[in-house]
Protein backbone atom coordinates (compact mmCIF):
# COMPACT_ATOMS: atom_id res chain seq x y z
CA UNK A 1 0.00 0.00 0.00
CA UNK A 2 1.23 3.48 -0.88
CA UNK A 3 2.16 5.56 2.12
CA UNK A 4 2.66 9.29 2.45
CA UNK A 5 4.66 11.32 4.97
CA UNK A 6 4.54 15.11 5.10
CA UNK A 7 7.09 17.62 6.43
CA UNK A 8 5.81 21.05 7.48
CA UNK A 9 8.41 23.82 7.81
CA UNK A 10 6.08 26.83 7.72
CA UNK A 11 4.43 28.57 10.72
CA UNK A 12 0.64 28.58 11.37
CA UNK A 13 0.23 32.03 9.79
CA UNK A 14 1.91 31.06 6.50
CA UNK A 15 -0.18 30.73 3.34
CA UNK A 16 1.87 27.63 2.50
CA UNK A 17 0.44 25.98 5.60
CA UNK A 18 -3.06 26.36 4.14
CA UNK A 19 -1.87 24.61 0.97
CA UNK A 20 -0.28 21.88 3.09
CA UNK A 21 -3.47 21.34 5.09
CA UNK A 22 -5.59 21.22 1.95
CA UNK A 23 -3.15 18.69 0.46
CA UNK A 24 -3.06 16.46 3.54
CA UNK A 25 -6.84 16.49 3.94
CA UNK A 26 -7.33 15.67 0.24
CA UNK A 27 -4.96 12.71 0.65
CA UNK A 28 -6.82 11.47 3.73
CA UNK A 29 -10.22 11.84 2.04
CA UNK A 30 -8.84 9.89 -0.95
CA UNK A 31 -7.98 7.05 1.43
CA UNK A 32 -4.21 7.42 1.15
CA UNK A 33 -2.33 6.15 4.18
CA UNK A 34 -0.73 9.30 5.64
CA UNK A 35 1.67 7.76 8.15
CA UNK A 36 2.57 11.03 9.81
CA UNK A 37 3.22 14.75 9.64
CA UNK A 38 6.59 16.00 10.89
CA UNK A 39 6.81 19.65 11.96
CA UNK A 40 10.29 21.08 11.54
CA UNK A 41 11.82 24.58 11.48
CA UNK A 42 9.01 27.19 11.93
CA UNK A 43 6.45 24.39 11.60
CA UNK A 44 6.89 23.61 15.30
CA UNK A 45 5.04 26.85 16.12
CA UNK A 46 1.81 24.95 15.45
CA UNK A 47 2.31 23.08 18.71
CA UNK A 48 2.73 26.22 20.81
CA UNK A 49 -0.24 26.13 23.17
CA UNK A 50 0.06 29.89 23.81
CA UNK A 51 -0.57 30.91 20.22
CA UNK A 52 -3.96 32.39 19.44
CA UNK A 53 -4.40 33.58 15.88
CA UNK A 54 -6.89 36.42 15.24
CA UNK A 55 -10.35 34.96 14.67
CA UNK A 56 -10.72 36.39 11.15
CA UNK A 57 -7.52 34.59 10.03
CA UNK A 58 -7.11 30.99 8.86
CA UNK A 59 -7.09 28.70 11.93
CA UNK A 60 -4.32 26.33 10.89
CA UNK A 61 -3.81 24.86 14.36
CA UNK A 62 -7.51 24.02 14.73
CA UNK A 63 -7.42 22.27 11.35
CA UNK A 64 -4.42 20.15 12.34
CA UNK A 65 -6.20 19.22 15.59
CA UNK A 66 -9.31 18.27 13.64
CA UNK A 67 -7.37 16.05 11.20
CA UNK A 68 -5.49 14.44 14.09
CA UNK A 69 -8.77 13.61 15.84
CA UNK A 70 -10.79 12.60 12.80
CA UNK A 71 -8.14 10.42 11.12
CA UNK A 72 -5.84 9.60 14.08
CA UNK A 73 -3.18 11.40 12.05
CA UNK A 74 0.14 11.42 13.95
CA UNK A 75 1.53 14.95 14.33
CA UNK A 76 5.18 15.01 15.41
CA UNK A 77 7.14 18.09 16.37
CA UNK A 78 10.93 18.27 16.38
CA UNK A 79 12.01 18.92 19.98
CA UNK A 80 15.24 20.68 18.95
CA UNK A 81 13.43 23.08 16.63
CA UNK A 82 10.77 23.73 19.30
CA UNK A 83 13.22 24.45 22.11
CA UNK A 84 15.25 26.67 19.81
CA UNK A 85 12.07 28.75 19.39
CA UNK A 86 11.39 28.96 23.11
CA UNK A 87 8.76 26.22 23.34
CA UNK A 88 9.82 24.23 26.40
CA UNK A 89 9.26 20.50 25.87
CA UNK A 90 10.92 19.08 28.97
CA UNK A 91 8.06 19.09 31.51
CA UNK A 92 6.23 15.76 31.97
CA UNK A 93 2.74 17.24 32.17
CA UNK A 94 3.42 20.01 29.68
CA UNK A 95 0.87 22.79 29.33
CA UNK A 96 2.94 24.62 26.72
CA UNK A 97 2.48 21.97 24.03
CA UNK A 98 -0.80 21.49 22.21
CA UNK A 99 -2.07 18.01 23.13
CA UNK A 100 -2.73 17.06 19.50
CA UNK A 101 1.04 17.04 18.89
CA UNK A 102 3.64 14.49 19.94
CA UNK A 103 7.08 15.72 20.96
CA UNK A 104 9.54 13.74 18.83
CA UNK A 105 13.04 14.09 17.48
CA UNK A 106 14.64 14.01 14.06
CA UNK A 107 14.85 10.22 14.47
CA UNK A 108 11.09 10.22 13.84
CA UNK A 109 11.72 11.97 10.52
CA UNK A 110 14.14 9.16 9.59
CA UNK A 111 11.48 6.60 10.53
CA UNK A 112 8.77 8.34 8.48
CA UNK A 113 11.07 8.86 5.49
CA UNK A 114 12.17 5.24 5.32
CA UNK A 115 8.61 3.93 5.71
CA UNK A 116 6.90 6.31 3.29
CA UNK A 117 6.54 5.65 -0.42
CA UNK A 118 6.53 9.41 -0.82
CA UNK A 119 7.74 12.31 1.32
CA UNK A 120 6.33 15.77 0.62
CA UNK A 121 7.75 18.95 2.14
CA UNK A 122 5.95 22.24 2.61
Amino acid sequence: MKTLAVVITTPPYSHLTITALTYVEAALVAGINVIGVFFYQDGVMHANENISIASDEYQAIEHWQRLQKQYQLPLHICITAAEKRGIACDAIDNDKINKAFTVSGLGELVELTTKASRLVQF
Partner: protein
Amino acid sequence: MTSIEQNSSASPQESVLAIINSKAPFSSSHGKDALDVALIFAAFEQKVSLFFQGDGVYQLMDKQDGSLLGIKDYLKTFSAFEFYDIEDIYVCQPSLASRQLDEDFHIDDVQVLSSIEFGLALNRHQHVLRF
Protein backbone atom coordinates in the same frame (compact mmCIF):
# COMPACT_ATOMS: atom_id res chain seq x y z
CA MET B 1 17.70 0.22 13.82
CA THR B 2 16.82 -3.04 12.13
CA SER B 3 13.17 -2.08 11.88
CA ILE B 4 14.11 0.92 9.75
CA GLU B 5 16.35 -1.14 7.49
CA GLN B 6 13.62 -3.70 6.95
CA ASN B 7 11.09 -1.02 6.19
CA SER B 8 13.32 0.87 3.80
CA SER B 9 11.74 0.79 0.39
CA ALA B 10 14.77 2.25 -1.42
CA SER B 11 16.28 -0.06 -4.01
CA PRO B 12 20.01 -0.76 -3.59
CA GLN B 13 21.21 1.60 -6.31
CA GLU B 14 19.06 4.39 -4.95
CA SER B 15 19.92 6.55 -1.94
CA VAL B 16 17.19 7.29 0.57
CA LEU B 17 17.49 11.04 0.88
CA ALA B 18 18.86 14.03 -1.02
CA ILE B 19 19.13 17.29 0.89
CA ILE B 20 19.26 20.43 -1.23
CA ASN B 21 20.92 23.41 0.41
CA SER B 22 19.76 26.59 -1.30
CA LYS B 23 20.36 29.30 1.30
CA ALA B 24 23.45 31.27 2.34
CA PRO B 25 24.91 30.05 5.64
CA PHE B 26 24.43 32.77 8.25
CA SER B 27 21.32 34.82 7.46
CA SER B 28 18.94 32.05 8.52
CA SER B 29 19.03 28.69 10.28
CA HIS B 30 18.24 26.71 7.11
CA GLY B 31 21.81 25.48 6.67
CA LYS B 32 22.09 24.29 10.26
CA ASP B 33 18.64 22.66 10.10
CA ALA B 34 19.68 20.81 6.93
CA LEU B 35 22.93 19.72 8.56
CA ASP B 36 21.05 18.33 11.59
CA VAL B 37 18.81 16.27 9.28
CA ALA B 38 21.82 14.97 7.32
CA LEU B 39 23.68 13.89 10.46
CA ILE B 40 20.67 12.15 12.00
CA PHE B 41 20.02 10.16 8.80
CA ALA B 42 23.69 9.19 8.70
CA ALA B 43 23.57 8.23 12.40
CA PHE B 44 20.66 5.89 11.57
CA GLU B 45 22.79 4.45 8.74
CA GLN B 46 20.54 5.81 6.03
CA LYS B 47 22.31 6.92 2.88
CA VAL B 48 22.08 10.69 2.51
CA SER B 49 23.57 13.00 -0.13
CA LEU B 50 24.05 16.75 0.05
CA PHE B 51 23.36 19.09 -2.83
CA PHE B 52 24.40 22.76 -2.87
CA GLN B 53 22.65 25.06 -5.28
CA GLY B 54 21.93 28.79 -5.61
CA ASP B 55 23.09 30.78 -2.56
CA GLY B 56 23.57 27.41 -0.84
CA VAL B 57 27.01 27.19 -2.49
CA TYR B 58 28.22 29.86 -0.03
CA GLN B 59 28.02 27.19 2.68
CA LEU B 60 30.99 25.44 1.07
CA MET B 61 33.24 28.48 0.65
CA ASP B 62 36.50 28.44 2.58
CA LYS B 63 37.64 31.00 5.15
CA GLN B 64 34.31 31.82 6.79
CA ASP B 65 33.70 32.19 10.51
CA GLY B 66 30.13 32.53 11.76
CA SER B 67 31.37 33.25 15.28
CA LEU B 68 32.34 36.73 14.08
CA LEU B 69 28.59 37.32 13.77
CA GLY B 70 27.89 35.79 17.16
CA ILE B 71 26.51 32.67 15.46
CA LYS B 72 27.55 29.10 16.26
CA ASP B 73 29.68 28.18 13.27
CA TYR B 74 27.94 25.00 12.11
CA LEU B 75 30.09 24.92 8.96
CA LYS B 76 32.95 23.49 11.03
CA THR B 77 30.84 20.36 11.48
CA PHE B 78 31.07 19.70 7.72
CA SER B 79 34.52 18.26 8.39
CA ALA B 80 32.75 15.39 10.24
CA PHE B 81 31.00 14.17 7.06
CA GLU B 82 33.72 11.58 6.47
CA PHE B 83 33.22 10.20 10.00
CA TYR B 84 29.45 9.97 9.32
CA ASP B 85 30.03 8.25 5.93
CA ILE B 86 28.40 11.16 4.09
CA GLU B 87 30.35 10.87 0.87
CA ASP B 88 28.13 12.23 -1.85
CA ILE B 89 28.44 16.01 -1.82
CA TYR B 90 27.46 17.81 -4.99
CA VAL B 91 27.66 21.46 -5.94
CA CYS B 92 26.02 23.14 -8.91
CA GLN B 93 28.68 24.61 -11.22
CA PRO B 94 26.44 27.32 -12.78
CA SER B 95 25.57 28.52 -9.25
CA LEU B 96 29.31 28.99 -8.55
CA ALA B 97 29.91 30.66 -11.91
CA SER B 98 27.04 33.13 -11.62
CA ARG B 99 28.42 34.22 -8.22
CA GLN B 100 32.01 34.38 -9.55
CA LEU B 101 33.12 31.84 -6.93
CA ASP B 102 36.17 29.61 -7.30
CA GLU B 103 36.09 25.95 -6.35
CA ASP B 104 37.74 26.81 -3.07
CA PHE B 105 35.84 24.64 -0.59
CA HIS B 106 36.45 24.11 3.12
CA ILE B 107 35.89 20.35 2.81
CA ASP B 108 37.38 17.77 0.46
CA ASP B 109 35.74 15.49 -2.10
CA VAL B 110 33.08 17.92 -3.26
CA GLN B 111 31.87 17.07 -6.76
CA VAL B 112 31.19 20.02 -9.04
CA LEU B 113 28.41 19.11 -11.49
CA SER B 114 26.78 20.74 -14.49
CA SER B 115 23.04 21.44 -14.32
CA ILE B 116 22.26 18.22 -16.18
CA GLU B 117 24.56 16.09 -14.02
CA PHE B 118 23.14 17.78 -10.92
CA GLY B 119 19.62 16.85 -11.97
CA LEU B 120 20.61 13.27 -12.79
CA ALA B 121 22.31 12.88 -9.42
CA LEU B 122 19.19 14.18 -7.67
CA ASN B 123 17.09 11.69 -9.59
CA ARG B 124 19.00 8.80 -8.01
CA HIS B 125 17.34 9.55 -4.67
CA GLN B 126 14.02 8.31 -3.38
CA HIS B 127 13.22 11.41 -1.33
CA VAL B 128 14.26 15.07 -1.45
CA LEU B 129 14.20 17.72 1.25
CA ARG B 130 15.07 21.32 0.44
CA PHE B 131 16.37 23.93 2.86
